[in-house]
């Protein structure tokens, strides 16, 4: 057995059930671990240990009285700083929200509370989820637990690093263009983005509303399936959430669905820009599926190279609109130097937002502005249709698609921070999935010679989560990559 803080949800749920441990013991083990390693990792922006222990005690009392809420009852789950947790800070790693405290719970948080989870901690991220390295946080730089000089990926870098370092049993993140899957790959953990609309966005600070989704980081695929079952569903507070379709018994599906599957490999994802070690690793994973009797089918997603420009037009346009709410009037940072209403807006925003956020708001404003709307925004929306059509065509032939999650392993801190375009290309394999609204998961698939984790991405059709989990689970359980932990 690994130490308690590196257990899976399923292992802890079993230990709790048979009385080998308590939620207080598990929560304390996680808190102790944070105390021991977070000076190095810097995953947490803040932590309310007293509140966490109180929730754990309540869980243990329920259990003692013979009424537990199920497998998540008593499991400590840490939260990205972009999801609202009542009475806890919600800063989106931005100076703009430095003193903001959330007055309510996000829907996904309420659902996890209803399942008995211990909700704790605020995890570092790129400011307003804009970035691929977590270096855009206004507060601190998170390290990759596998190499403290490297970035953990982003924007949910704190959520991924905390998992790799054993600082939580599971974490939540958000994924707009790869912000769960890319850091999961770079930190050697499981990270999953659901079909658009499957989880309510109520209480998630909006970045790009047509792309944003909440999702779990876990040690194994089964844990991700468990969390997804607890969080999915139509929510009256989010009109873009949808009633789930298809098989939503994800945990059962891991046992029932054993393949063999028809798996597509898009040739566009193995061309220029991919690190040779990543390429070899993913090809080996594909060979493993072939050896299990799966049909490996060469497919084409011909508009893949347009996904980055489409994404950075659509996402920044939506962001420029969504972030207009931060005006220094009702909440958030207010400039002390303002002397009229307009300078209150311009100075508060100029002072409160960091560099990348300003860059994206300016870009988004530009592509929506008169004279450029048709050439950029409208055209990007049309190409987005073509990108979705590519996937629809591919899924007529295959059950799921296999790709690398990230073209490279974790890079060194500072390596790309002065070159936004090279940073944007870190998401080249993940963003088309958001544009098309599909579910995808990253599972650990091995390590580079230097010991950095690599992730395999499994993409499924909309509402195809059950198959996606089953395909990923089969590979995971046949290898021990997911059980490896970094030396800290």
């Amino acid at each position, binding site marked *: 057995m690994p130490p308690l803080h590196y257990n899976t949800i399923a292992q802890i749920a079993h230990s709790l059930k048979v009385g080998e441990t308590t939620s207080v013991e598990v929560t304390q083990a996680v808190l102790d671990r944070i105390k021991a390693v977070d000076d190095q990792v810097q995953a947490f922006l803040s932590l309310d240990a007293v509140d966490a222990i109180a929730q754990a005690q309540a869980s243990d009392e329920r259990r003692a009285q013979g009424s537990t809420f199920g497998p998540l009852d008593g499991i400590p789950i840490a939260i990205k700083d972009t999801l609202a947790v009542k009475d806890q800070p919600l800063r989106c790693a931005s100076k703009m929200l430095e003193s903001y405290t959330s007055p309510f719970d996000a829907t996904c948080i309420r659902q996890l509370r209803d399942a008995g989870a211990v909700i704790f901690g605020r995890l570092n991220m790129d400011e307003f989820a804009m970035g691929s390295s977590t270096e855009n946080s206004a507060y601190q730089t998170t390290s990759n637990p596998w190499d403290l000089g490297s970035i953990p990926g982003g924007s949910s870098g704190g959520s991924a690093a905390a998992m790799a370092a054993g600082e939580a049993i599971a974490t939540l993140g958000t994924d707009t263009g790869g912000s769960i899957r890319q850091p999961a790959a770079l930190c050697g953990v499981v990270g999953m983005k659901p079909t658009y609309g499957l989880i309510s966005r109520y209480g998630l600070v909006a970045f790009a509303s047509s792309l944003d989704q909440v999702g779990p980081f876990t040690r194994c695929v089964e844990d991700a399936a468990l969390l997804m079952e607890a969080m999915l569903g139509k929510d*009256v507070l989010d*009109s873009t959430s949808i009633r789930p379709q298809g098989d939503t018994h994800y945990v059962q599906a891991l046992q029932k669905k054993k393949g063999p599957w028809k798996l597509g490999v898009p040739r566009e994802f193995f061309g220029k820009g991919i690190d040779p070690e990543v390429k070899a690793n993913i090809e080996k994973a594909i060979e493993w599926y072939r050896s299990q009797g799966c049909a490996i089918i060469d497919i084409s997603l011909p508009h893949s190279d347009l996904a980055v*420009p489409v994404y950075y037009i659509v996402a920044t346009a939506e962001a420029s609109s969504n972030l207009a709410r931060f005006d220094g*009037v009702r909440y958030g940072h207010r400039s002390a130097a303002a002397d009229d209403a307009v300078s209150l807006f311009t*100075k508060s925003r100029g002072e409160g937002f960091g560099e990348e956020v300003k*860059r994206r708001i300016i870009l988004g404003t530009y592509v929506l502005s008169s004279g450029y709307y048709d050439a950029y925004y409208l055209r990007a929306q049309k190409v987005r249709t073509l990108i979705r059509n590519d996937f629809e065509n591919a899924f007529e032939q295959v059950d799921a698609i296999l790709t690398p999650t990230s073209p490279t392993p974790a890079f060194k801190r500072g390596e790309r921070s002065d070159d936004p375009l090279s940073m944007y290309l870190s998401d080249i394999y993940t963003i088309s999935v958001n544009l098309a609204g599909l579910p995808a998961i990253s599972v650990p698939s091995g390590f580079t010679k230097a010991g950095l984790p690599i992730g395999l991405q499994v993409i499924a059709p909309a509402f195809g989560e059950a198959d996606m989990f089953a395909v990923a689970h089969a590979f995971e359980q046949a290898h021990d990559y997911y059980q490896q932990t970094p030396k800290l």
Partner: protein
Amino acid sequence: MSEKPHIDIDYVADLARIKLSDKEKSTLSAQLADILGHFEKLSAVDVDGIEPMAHTQNIHNVWRPGDAPGATLKAQTLIEMAPEQRDNQVVVPKVVE
């Protein structure tokens, strides 16, 4: 979209209601020209007859049932979040001369 894109940074910053320093303006102008250059490949795509996609689920409009009274956050809780408040109101600089 064929010429080298140029952003009138003062105009766009004003539209976005963000005050930028001179240094930020020059850095951003150069970076955005690079990024927009990368967007140029979109202009070569044939999009004749292709519908624009705003959303993945094809949701066009959502009507909701009439509001039923229920628990809400207290007005005071929300007003207390404002950087400056007085007499249960948010204080802002003078808007109308």
